[in-house]
């Protein structure tokens, strides 16, 4: 349906422009060149005014249609502040936009070439220049200042009771590690990475803290209203943890861990009630990472504390898995096709 409308609008646009062109051609034959030029000038002045009116109506219509449907309410406490900032910025830049555009179109219409209208000699005025330098500078300072204030709040230290999850990006998927019962993530070293030996993250098994760490892929489970701190890294190229529903984003840079913390406000079940049964919180990879970039997605599952505890109780630490695989040596070579260094064991002391 919408396709038909767009096509109809396009065809109408073509016809209008074509008719105007044809009319102006006849007029030019009848009136001679100089008059045509002036006629033409009037038509264009008028078209510009029409463009302004139609444009403003279009913006209003677009706003009415899409209002509230774009992303819905922020699903994290921190995201509310970002939404506030976006709204404030939209209002301020919107005011500036309307003022400059109305002036622009009004000037184009009013000061178009006419018999009685000669150009006015007005080379400069320092007072005006100062006004339109200082006012935007102050406005921008306030906006950026507010931005920094919120930013420092959001990126500051995570609360002490925050749950910690390690997020690792690879081509093309997400891996997660929970610290387990001891609350400490064990040490890891990238040369230890051996997927065939059940060690996809390169955990060092001699480190006791590693032995209860829980490893999952694709879906990360979080607890509603409990702050969570992501420690983000990457195995190969730069990825990006994009969380549009929570209004957050952080790059996953190989070799340089980054952190991010936030507090989810609604459980996935609550969101499903609101937006339909297909709703999932999504982790989209927002940094171009190669061929499969478009399909690199993860899911955030926000649950109640009880549901989370039930889930984590069913998870076995990766250590158990790895030990059982080492007991029965893998009969295939590294089948993942990745350049995993085969130096396992060197760092094991």
């Amino acid at each position: 349906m919408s396709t038909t409308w767009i096509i109809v609008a396009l065809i109408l646009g073509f016809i209008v422009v074509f008719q105007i062109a044809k009319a102006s051609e006849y007029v030019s034959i009848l009136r001679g060149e100089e008059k045509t030029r002036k006629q033409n000038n009037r038509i264009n002045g008028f078209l510009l005014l029409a463009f302004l009116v139609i444009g403003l109506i279009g913006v209003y219509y677009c706003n009415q249609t899409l209002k509230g449907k774009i992303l819905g309410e922020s699903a994290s406490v921190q995201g509310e502040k970002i939404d506030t900032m976006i709204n404030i910025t939209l209002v301020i830049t919107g005011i500036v936009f309307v003022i400059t555009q109305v002036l622009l179109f009004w000037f184009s219409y009013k000061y178009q070439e006419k018999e009685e209208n000669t150009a006015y000699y007005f080379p400069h005025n320092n007072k005006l220049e100062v006004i339109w330098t200082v006012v935007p500078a102050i406005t921008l300072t306030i906006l950026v200042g507010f931005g920094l204030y919120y930013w420092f709040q959001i990126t500051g230290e995570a609360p002490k009771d925050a749950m910690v999850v390690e997020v690792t990006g690879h081509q093309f998927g997400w891996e997660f590690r929970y610290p387990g019962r001891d609350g400490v993530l064990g040490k890891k070293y990238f040369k230890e990475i051996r997927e065939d030996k059940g060690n996809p993250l390169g955990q060092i098994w001699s480190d006791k803290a590693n032995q209860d760490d829980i490893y999952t892929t694709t879906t990360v489970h979080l607890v509603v209203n409990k702050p969570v701190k992501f420690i983000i890294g990457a195995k190969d190229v730069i990825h990006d943890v994009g969380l549009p529903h929570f209004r957050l984003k952080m790059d996953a840079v190989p070799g340089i861990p980054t952190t991010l913390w936030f507090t989810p406000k609604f459980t996935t079940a609550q969101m499903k009630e609101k937006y339909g049964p297909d709703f999932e919180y999504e982790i989209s990879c927002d940094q171009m990472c190669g061929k499969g970039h478009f399909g690199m997605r993860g899911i955030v599952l926000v649950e109640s504390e009880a549901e989370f505890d039930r889930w984590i109780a069913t998870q076995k630490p990766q250590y158990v898995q790895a030990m059982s695989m080492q007991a029965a040596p893998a009969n295939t070579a590294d089948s993942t096709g990745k350049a995993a260094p085969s130096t396992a064991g060197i760092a094991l002391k």
Partner: protein
Amino acid sequence: MEIRLSDIEKNKATYKDYRILRWLTSVDHKEIGIMYLWVALLFFVVGGIEALLMRTQLVMANNHFLSPDVYNQIFTMHGTTMIFFVMMPALFGFQVYMMPLMIGANDMAFPRMNAFSFWITLFGGLLLYFSFFAGGAPNAGWFNYAPLNESAYSSTSGIDYYCIGLLLAGIGSVSTGVNIIVTVLKYRAPGMSLKMLPLFVWMSFVNAFLIIGALPSLNAALSMLLLDRQLHAHFFNVASGGSALLWQHMFWLFGHPEVYIIILPAFGIYSEVFQVFSRKRIYGYSFVAGSTVAIALLSFGVWVHHMFATGLGNTVNAFFGASSMLIGVPTGIKIFNWLGTMYGGSIRFTVSMLFAIAFLIEFTIGGLTGIAFSIIPIDWQVTDTYYVVAHMHYVMVGGSLFGVLSGLFYWFQKLSGKQLDEKLGKIFFWLFVIGFNMTFFVQHILGIMGMPRRVYTYPDLPYFTLLNLCSTAGAFLMGGSLLLLFYNIYKTARKKELDRSDPWDGFTLEWLSTALPGQKNFEALPEIKSRRPYWDLKYPDKADWKNDDKERK
């Protein structure tokens, strides 16, 4: 003064028998300028087709028109081509052709270096495209982040061609920069002080310093990457101790000034166009020129706003957020000054002026959406989404490309001796501008909805298909309207008669030269007493220097 085609042909009689050799061996700034423009047009067609392929792929959710691999190559080549082999050559073409004419010189300072710059840029572009035949084009995006650009993750030789092609073009750009600076400093007409330079020349002059400052950072990064890929060095290879972020720092230290390298000469074109078609002097000359210098200096201190999501420290982010905000101010000043130029004028809506007015609309949108990027939390939310794509195209198409088109309609008479058809031009203008807004305005909304950029396809979420369809329809409207422009150029080029040498009642010296300047630009120059020497000559009783030009005293 009546000019006939035969007079001009006489000038060129010396080499009329060498049709091809003449172009190959030319060191004349005008012929080199024209070759720059042709090269830009050639790559523009190629880059445009790539854009249409991308939009076709994205027309609806879960589309499989291209394969992901091809899609990555296409969007990488689209960005690289449009920036390095369309916008830069097109603007160089105007600078190299018009600048000597505008300052009353007969050629650039170093004509042979000028030819060298052109040819090496062209070969850079050809090498880049040769990659299609050598196993695959570069596929890591136009900014080509490490370590995705390393041979472990991009094993075809595309990125090697990217490095060499851009290195060659980069060397060409730096030598053009040197050429422009020396020409402006040493070859101005007698009496023309730096304060009397036409604004297009002012902006090109400042721009040349930006080129010399910024391009070496890219050239160094490209050389390092080539070492990494070919000789297994470890600059960007994380596994052996390199840094994944080093490339981003070096690239954006070049990349942000590059944005201004592309927009400043376009600002220069607008400054000329607004004056001539408002029949007024520019409003606030010194502020327009001064804010250009401010932009040039600040542009070297804002690059980290491309990297707010990489987890750098808060102090660093705060500094670069503040500097990004600062750079918005001089740009805003310019917009107000152009509005001031229109105020009280006697405006003629030629195609050139229409593009300048449309630029003020699109660039204001692009500028205001850009402000969002200096506010870190918002930048953080919208970076790497379609919001950035929309913002960037509003600035680069609505800013730079509109400038090139405005300049093309303004100066075509000087380039070819003939004037482009205004009526066809106006139809082209309206279709192109409407198509442009259809394509890119909706991408702001898509970005805020969270659609990441550079995705090959997307899931069928509410409104995604509708908005993307609108965007694709707009892209095809733009493409279709460009055919009208090409036809216009073709039709005009075939005209037998030359048009008047001064169709717009111009202000600056290029209009004083003959309809199609011969090998020598000027036989004699008037005494230069103000910023509008040709105006003074034509209207001695209304001359600027007789008017209360207090600025100069």
